[in-house]
């Protein structure tokens, strides 16, 4: 018989946990859910837009009755659990229903706090927590005029905005002298207050409510100083309290919330708890993102994949008021040990502050332009050392280059028709509709449904902002904790560490040892694992061509019509008449449609059919030309200028330097593509300062530059150091490439990698640690001994033939009406 799981609370955390459980172990339990509210599960966050008239209740239902039926879940709507009998393992509901459990999940959420003043139970006094409250407010707005909102926090302001939209006159009463004091510092709070006043909301600051006055229905609110204001509706939005009554009565250990451990279990190990009702490592939470993280861990534990642990969350806040962009996260006030970095442009309505300690971001507040909120938030959660970007960090990630969105970064103010994703033609309206209609909570969800930011990714910041604006944030975990893919809960770093520690040298071994959920993996993890294994065990690992993207499998780039391109290596951009003739001959012989001088100082032949490739390569090989790896997550090009040999300004032989670098590094597989350049003087004609590794020759030697990118988002390199000799350049380059190979995540180019780990880390390993650098360079050279064979030659000689030939040709003599003729 299946085990029985009972869930108390049909809200966001409880049902998210059930969804996660169904994903990993659909048949593990007979599931019964009790919910006090008479509704199916809905998106509580969206009550604000419902109140503002931007959405309807139907729009915000997450799981309708049919979903419960489809998944064989018994749902008791409008039925409150009144007691838990832990000895007999059963729960008892209001209407007398009893249900026994093997495991119990308490997800009772929280209750709005009602301030203890006379009159707080009069008709017309409501909280802002559920559909019932919203109905009461909407009803009041039809009949009445004056609304008073007590509480100038997130909920209070969203309520006030909604009621203004419903045509009421609204006064927000706040005990403190600034709004949202738990999320905003003073300058941001003042800007916010001004914007809300412009929308017609009145504020009474530092006002302490003494009584709510009225006969049957509320009529006035009176304050400590004796003043009174008219009120037909009073909304209490002063805070929430974890709903722990039921658990407490059942003898489960509670403090402020129900105390849970890292596997989301309470002190009774059969009883789990997630959501706003819990307390974990001393913290309680009032936002959805942490609840989703807990839900995932809880589901994995219920499914007996006991590897995930919940280790607490760092949260960020967003106000969902149309037209207002605001972001806050972490400790944004600071203390005597922290520094403040502040950018303020009052007339443009822009303010940003970062609180920094030991070169790590501790908190952030932003007002006006919040496009970089998610970037700061990621840096903060990853505890990235920002010492090398401190002087520009306030200008945001986009200071590194404007990736096509011009000045316009304020998503809240954009019209729905604005194109956000240029690659796929997706507008703001498309994205916002998808988020609300398809119930999306993370960037990955939005990508899957709309394709926005799924191609080149340059609009990621805008999409994240839209998501934040619509549902209050990207509800996914910190970047360094993100699982490698859906097949595992381990992060990239964890997988690589385990691979080395447990000496896992093949993919099946790795997947079984690390409890992969799909024995077959998926396109995401298989390609990453293939690379990680190859990097860790260059002498032992046998490359799996089926775990490589087609370009790397076919050693040519697939084109939009299914044909391929061929780009031979042109060492350091230097070529010879003989090579050019060979390329020309091939182009004529195979009737190549396009011969193109590429952006990488080489020549590309386009439009070749797959079965023609070995022939083309054979001819090129004959002239000494080899694969340029223009298709690989590998060393691509080394661009050079003519340097000292010809140029009147050249200081060193940059062409020779580039050729040596290319000879050193060609054939090497890297997490993402890797490009280099060597320029003969600081005029930098080879554009070395936007390359993954760039050399700028100077009179005294060679300047080394790292982490540049000329693509989607231009990033100028960071200066690493200056060295004196060519030999040193080669050693530093080998060491740096190996560090990148061993440390970066698959598909992370050096630019984002360095922004994640910090330049200081790279300097420590490459510049300051001579011994370490030599070791890294040695490992690189060792791995090169296994990777420097021309893959084209191998295939010309017959390797992987199945890749290039059809299995069969079937020709049908259709006119004669006879059988198929098999060629």
């Amino acid at each position, binding site marked *: 018989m299946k085990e029985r799981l009972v869930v108390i609370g049909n809200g966001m955390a409880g049902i998210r946990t059930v969804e996660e459980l169904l994903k990993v172990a659909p048949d593990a339990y007979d599931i019964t859910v009790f919910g006090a509210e008479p509704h199916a599960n809905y998106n509580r966050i969206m009550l604000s837009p419902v109140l503002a008239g931007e959405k309807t209740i139907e729009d915000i239902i997450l799981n309708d009755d049919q979903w419960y039926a489809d998944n064989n879940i018994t749902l008791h709507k409008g039925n409150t659990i009144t007691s838990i009998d832990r000895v007999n393992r059963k729960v008892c509901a209001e209407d007398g229903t009893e249900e026994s459990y093997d495991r119990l999940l308490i997800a009772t959420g929280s209750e709005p706090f009602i301030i203890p003043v006379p009159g707080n139970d009069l008709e017309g006094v409501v909280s802002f927590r559920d559909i019932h409250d919203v109905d009461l407010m909407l009803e009041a707005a039809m009949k009445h005029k004056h609304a008073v909102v007590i509480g100038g926090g997130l909920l209070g302001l969203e309520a006030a905005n909604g009621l203004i939209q419903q045509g009421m006159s609204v006064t927000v009463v706040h005990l403190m002298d600034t709004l949202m004091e738990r999320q905003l510092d003073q300058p941001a709070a003042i800007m916010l207050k001004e914007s809300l006043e412009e929308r017609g909301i009145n504020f009474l600051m530092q006002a302490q409510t003494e009584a709510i006055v009225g006969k049957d229905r509320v009529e006035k609110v009176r304050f400590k100083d004796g003043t009174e204001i008219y009120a037909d509706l009073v909304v209490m939005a002063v805070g929430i309290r974890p709903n722990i009554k039921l658990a407490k009565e059942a003898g489960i250990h509670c403090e402020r919330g129900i105390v849970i451990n890292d596997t989301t279990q309470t002190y009774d190990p059969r009883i789990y708890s997630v959501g706003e009702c819990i307390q974990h490592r001393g913290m309680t939470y009032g936002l959805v993102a942490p609840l989703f993280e807990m839900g995932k861990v809880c589901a994995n534990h219920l499914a007996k994949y006991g590897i995930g642990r919940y280790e607490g969350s760092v949260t960020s806040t967003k106000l969902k008021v149309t037209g207002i962009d605001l972001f806050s996260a972490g400790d944004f006030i600071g203390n005597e040990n922290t520094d403040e970095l502040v950018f303020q442009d009052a007339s443009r309505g822009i303010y940003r502050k970062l609180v920094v300690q030991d070169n790590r971001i501790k908190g952030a507040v932003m007002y006006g332009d919040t496009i970089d909120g998610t970037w700061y938030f990621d840096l903060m959660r990853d505890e990235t050392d920002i010492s090398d970007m401190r002087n520009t960090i306030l200008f945001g990630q986009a200071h590194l280059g404007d990736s096509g969105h011009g000045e316009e970064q304020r998503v809240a103010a954009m019209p729905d028709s604005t194109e956000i994703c240029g690659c796929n033609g997706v507008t703001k309206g498309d994205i916002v509709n998808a988020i609300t209609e398809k119930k999306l909570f993370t960037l990955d969800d939005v990508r899957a449904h709309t394709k926005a930011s799924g191609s080149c990714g340059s609009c990621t910041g805008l999409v994240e902002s839209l998501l934040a604006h619509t549902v209050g944030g990207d509800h996914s975990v910190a970047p360094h904790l993100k699982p490698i893919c859906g097949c595992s809960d381990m992060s990239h770093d964890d997988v690589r560490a385990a691979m080395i520690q447990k000496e896992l040298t093949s993919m099946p071994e790795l997947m079984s040892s690390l409890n992969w959920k*799909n024995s077959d993996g998926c396109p995401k993890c298989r390609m990453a694992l293939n690379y990680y294994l190859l990097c860790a065990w260059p002498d032992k690992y046998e490359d799996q061509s089926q775990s490589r993207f087609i370009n790397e499998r076919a050693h040519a780039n697939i084109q939009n019509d299914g044909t391929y391109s061929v780009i031979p290596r042109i060492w350091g951009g230097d070529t010879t008449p003989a090579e050019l003739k060979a390329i020309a001959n091939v182009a004529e012989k195979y009737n190549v449609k396009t011969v193109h001088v590429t952006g990488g100082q080489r020549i590309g032949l386009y439009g070749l059919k797959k079965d023609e490739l070995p022939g083309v390569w054979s001819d090129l090989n004959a002239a000494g030309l080899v694969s340029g790896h223009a298709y690989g997550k590998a060393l691509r090009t080394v661009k050079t200028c003519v340097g000292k040999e010809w140029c009147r300004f050249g200081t060193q032989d940059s062409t020779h330097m580039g050729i040596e670098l290319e000879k050193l590094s060609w054939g090497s597989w890297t997490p993402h593509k890797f490009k280099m350049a060597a320029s003969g003087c600081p005029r930098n004609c080879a554009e070395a300062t936007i390359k993954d590794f760039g050399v700028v020759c100077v009179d005294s030697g060679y300047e080394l530059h790292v982490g540049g990118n000329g693509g989607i988002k231009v990033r100028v390199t960071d200066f690493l150091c200056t060295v004196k000799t060519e030999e040193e350049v080669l050693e530093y380059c080998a060491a740096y490439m190996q560090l990148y190979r061993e440390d970066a995540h698959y598909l992370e180019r050096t630019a984002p990698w360095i922004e994640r780990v910090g330049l200081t880390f790279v300097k420590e390993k490459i510049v300051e640690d001579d011994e370490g650098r030599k070791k890294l360079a040695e490992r690189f050279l060792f791995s090169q001994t296994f990777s420097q064979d021309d893959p084209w030659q191998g295939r010309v000689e017959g390797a992987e033939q199945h890749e290039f030939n059809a299995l069969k040709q079937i020709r049908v003599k259709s006119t004669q009406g006879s059988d198929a003729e098999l060629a």
Partner: protein
Amino acid sequence: MSAVMNGNWIEVGVINDIPVQGARVVNTDEGDIAIFRTVDDEIFALRDKCPHKGGPLSQGIVHGKKVACPLHNWNISLDTGIAVAPDEGCAARYPIKIEENTIYLSLNSE
């Protein structure tokens, strides 16, 4: 043509001609057909044309009973030819018969 081919099984090769978690192509007058082999040695045949923008599915990544298209990464179910949600579309399926490791294909798409 379908009248001619009705019920005809055409031998196209043996299972080991196709790499595990891979695919091969059969050229026909009416376009290419991709023959896939999963990790469990199941064989499927689909029109080698992605319902999105016609990408050659045979060049994709086979995982589980799905293939990820090489051009824009849509996932297509090998047993039905239907794109995995949220994407929408369908590639034609062709019947396959295996007898003692030999693969037979029928050109009557389903």
